């Protein structure tokens, strides 16, 4: 066994050439990670809720009963920017979950299904509550123009956009 490695290391430790990283740094990292996970989940819940509200308020699913050309209108009318943002946050969720020890205790696919299921459950709860209507009313009445939110809820989540496709 080589004593030189031990000798060299211990000398560096005594001289403080190597020092332990402070405990609070690891605590902060862990809290940051937990906070990041919580934030990602909350954002995904509201994004998914917004997607459901868009589908409902534009009557996109009802239009499927009216024939093949409506599929083209449906595909044309979907909120692709919102879908892209949802996908981006889903990727972030995937990355953040893998930083936690629980992510390898069980098959990862099951863990993702559990998270996605939970997100869908809560977004559906919010969708069926008064949240979207209240938010839209407040945005319509407010003088402020909140980026993305105002345009999305006031202008895009309405039957007008669907009706215009029939002209």
């Amino acid at each position, binding site marked *: 066994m080589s004593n030189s*490695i*031990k000798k*060299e290391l*211990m000398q560096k430790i005594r001289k403080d050439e*190597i020092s*332990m*990283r402070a405990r609070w740094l690891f605590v902060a990292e862990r809290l940051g990670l937990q906070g990041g996970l919580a934030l990602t989940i909350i954002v995904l819940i509201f994004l998914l809720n917004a997607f459901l509200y868009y589908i409902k308020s534009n009557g996109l699913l009802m239009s499927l009963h009216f024939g093949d050309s409506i599929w083209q209108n449906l595909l044309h009318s979907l909120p692709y920017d919102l879908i892209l943002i949802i996908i981006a946050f889903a990727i972030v969720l995937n990355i953040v979950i893998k930083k936690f020890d629980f*992510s390898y205790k069980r098959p990862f696919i099951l863990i993702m299904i559990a998270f996605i299921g939970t997100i869908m459950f809560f977004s559906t709860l919010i969708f069926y509550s008064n949240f979207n209507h209240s938010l839209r009313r407040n945005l319509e009445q407010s003088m402020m123009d909140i980026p993305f939110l105002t345009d999305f809820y006031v202008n895009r989540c309405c039957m007008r956009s669907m009706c215009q496709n029939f002209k």
Partner: protein
Amino acid sequence: MQINESTTDEQIVKFCREEDKESFGFLIDRYELKIKCYINRLVNPNDKEDLNDLTQQVFINVYKNLNSVDIEKKFSSWIYRIAHNLAVNWLKAKKEKISIDASDILVGTLASDIDIKKDLLDKELKEEINSAINDLPDKFKEPFILKYFEGLSYDEISEILKKPKNTIGTMISRAKQQLKKKLVNIYE
């Protein structure tokens, strides 16, 4: 605190963090040879200086991050994980593959575990065994080395490689199947 053979690694870590950083030497004494052998098996460097440098770097990283150790979990899994990551990064930087030296393989254990006759393995030249194991894909080789060369449990290997225990079991099983196929083909 009196540190002796019965003192657990986790107790030494706690003592080192809170009271006496000199006690880190006890951890080096316990793990230096194990880590050096493990890195040697993964990396098999031509230059022994690289081996010493990597081993030293493991302990430097261990010391720097000692405050992150969860003493409710096994310290050994944590230090092996650090060693594993350093070795894999070194290999990537050198663009080399994991290449092991099977000279100290436990022939009897391996024979029974991959269900071939011991005398078949007794006939093996060291190079044939090395070649067969080295031909395994890295994802099978890593858990295989940890199981058969380091003698770690599936739980410990799962902690080190950050993969589910079932996956570890599957990988080791596939490694054994491929080895059996290759070794039996050579000698039948």
